[in-house]
């Protein structure tokens, strides 16, 4: 029953999926990994991005990924606003941990239910010229609908890495993660820096949502599948490590793809959550922990 062809196909598909998973997880890596804001609603913002891409695609025929890129400023503002509310209600009073978590859980729920009220619970999909095509490389088929999100995911990872290591604001975000007081003493405003970082995180979520809807149809409750994935990847990658996020995402993508190929797709979701449980129980600092 075992075939090398099947294995090669599964691994390639898994790596491509991993690039996309990295895109979905980058925002959490930034907000949870570096800022310690437990944005459990992140996957809901991803799905919001998916529906935005779907809406633009179905009414104006715009390319979903292009829409995703064009909408990032809007989601940046949304993210900044959410963070301001979070800061004002919890962080400033120093009660962020548990109540903040409940807050984001509520936000996740509100986004999800609002989407199903607006669009119903039918699967929504987008149309683009590259969807449905595939490239054949010596027996290994590469679906273009996976290849494009993979490339965009890699580009996003690289861009975020460069932003964090080369620019003033990027370094300031890393500084906030290390020592908030020291940053304040240097004359920078940690709240402003965190607002920027959170906005970027949500913008990344919306763009990855556009990638998601390119790969597969979505329903409002798709976000639940991604809660485990993004946190598994972020924790496995070592909180806040951008390179680690990419590596962890590819590990998870390959693991899921192998599981789906050899045991059936209904088991693949258990992989991410199983890995998450295992990592949390055995090595909570992840592979590349700080």
């Amino acid at each position, binding site marked *: 029953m075992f075939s090398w062809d099947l294995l090669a196909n599964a691994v390639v598909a898994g790596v491509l999926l991993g690039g996309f998973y990295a895109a979905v997880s980058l925002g959490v890596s930034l907000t949870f990994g570096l800022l310690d804001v437990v944005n459990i609603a992140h996957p809901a913002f991803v799905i919001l991005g998916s529906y935005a891409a779907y809406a633009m695609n179905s009414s104006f025929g715009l390319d979903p990924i292009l829409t995703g890129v064009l909408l990032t400023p809007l989601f940046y503002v949304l993210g900044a606003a959410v963070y301001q509310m979070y800061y004002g209600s919890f962080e400033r009073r120093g009660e962020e941990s*548990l109540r903040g*978590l409940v807050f984001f859980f*509520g936000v996740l729920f*509100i986004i999800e*239910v609002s989407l*199903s*009220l607006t669009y119903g619970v039918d699967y929504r999909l987008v149309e683009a010229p590259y969807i449905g095509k595939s490239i054949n490389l010596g027996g290994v088929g590469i679906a273009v609908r996976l290849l494009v999100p993979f490339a965009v995911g890699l580009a996003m990872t690289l861009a975020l890495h460069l932003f964090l290591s080369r620019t003033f604001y990027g370094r300031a975000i890393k500084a906030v993660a290390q020592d908030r007081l020291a940053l304040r003493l240097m004359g920078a405003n940690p709240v402003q820096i965190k607002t920027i970082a959170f906005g970027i995180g949500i913008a990344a979520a919306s763009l990855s949502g556009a990638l998601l809807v390119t790969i597969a149809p979505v329903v409002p409750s798709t976000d639940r599948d991604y809660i485990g994935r993004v946190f598994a990847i972020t*924790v496995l990658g070592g909180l806040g490590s951008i390179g680690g996020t990419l590596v962890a995402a590819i590990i998870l993508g390959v693991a899921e793809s192998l599981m789906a190929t050899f045991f059936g797709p209904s*088991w693949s979701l258990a992989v991410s959550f199983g890995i998450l*449980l295992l990592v949390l129980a055995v090595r909570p600092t992840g592979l590349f922990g700080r």
Partner: protein
Amino acid sequence: MRTGGGLLAGLAVIVGGILLASLGVNQYLYFAGYVVLQYVVVATAWNILGGYAGYVNFGTSAFFALGAYTAIFLIEAVQAPLPVLILAGGLVSGLLGLGIGYLTLRLKGVFFSIATLALSVVLQTLIMNWDYVGGAKGVTVIRPGGPLFGNWVTLLFTVMVGLAVAAVTVAWLIERSWVGRGLTALRDSEEAAECMGVPTLRLKLLATTISGFLLGVAGAPFPYYVTYVEPSSAFNLDYAVNALAMSMIGGTTTWIGPVIGAVLLGTAQQVATVTISSELNLLIVGVVLVAFVVLAPEGIMGLVRRARGR
């Protein structure tokens, strides 16, 4: 004296429930009342761990569903009677609770919450791939004929009245005993509590086990109530959100908080489901939850306390 009064009040509620059940009012009221009472049990159980000990469990649905699926298994296998189902459902979920209790050794705060959510999905995947209990397509449960009295809806309603009283009594006892004080201490600072000689691990294990047990108990009659169970309905995220929202709205530090929250929010949802739509009522839950954590973090009981203080 107080314990005696509480016991009497509990008995009165149970007797009242049986009387209410034998009255010939609209069947739908029992049907809706069951759901509200079920939420009293769920929210109270959640609060023992989340409110008293400060460990936020996002996997409420997993415990509830485990109770329900234990019942389904026993119905399929040996046609076990209802009391056995409830006890077994509680025990299995209690064991799972003990398991996550050991998890608290390594995982604190948000990591614990994320782990419980992960646990919920892993369990759901296992159940979805287990064909004996229906797998992904669900299972139809046939109620055995001739219930003890009345009909099945009123019987289940009465059972839930008893379970709600039992759950609240357990919460009340915990709160009044050294267990409750110990849990409060470890909620505020686990290190400090440990230093003062509070047996934190034993208390946490106790809290997770009791909480899990009660959630399983709440889920065990579920198959007979709905007669058709599928993984997505038993593992519904709504249970997790509701348990959290109800406790938060009522106030998490006392036993009465989750009861108030469950009765208010549960009733509001039942009314909204009939009069508006079930999607919209979930939206209301989400909005109310966010509004409360932002504006009144201590819940209704906190507001009452503040009003009294002035």
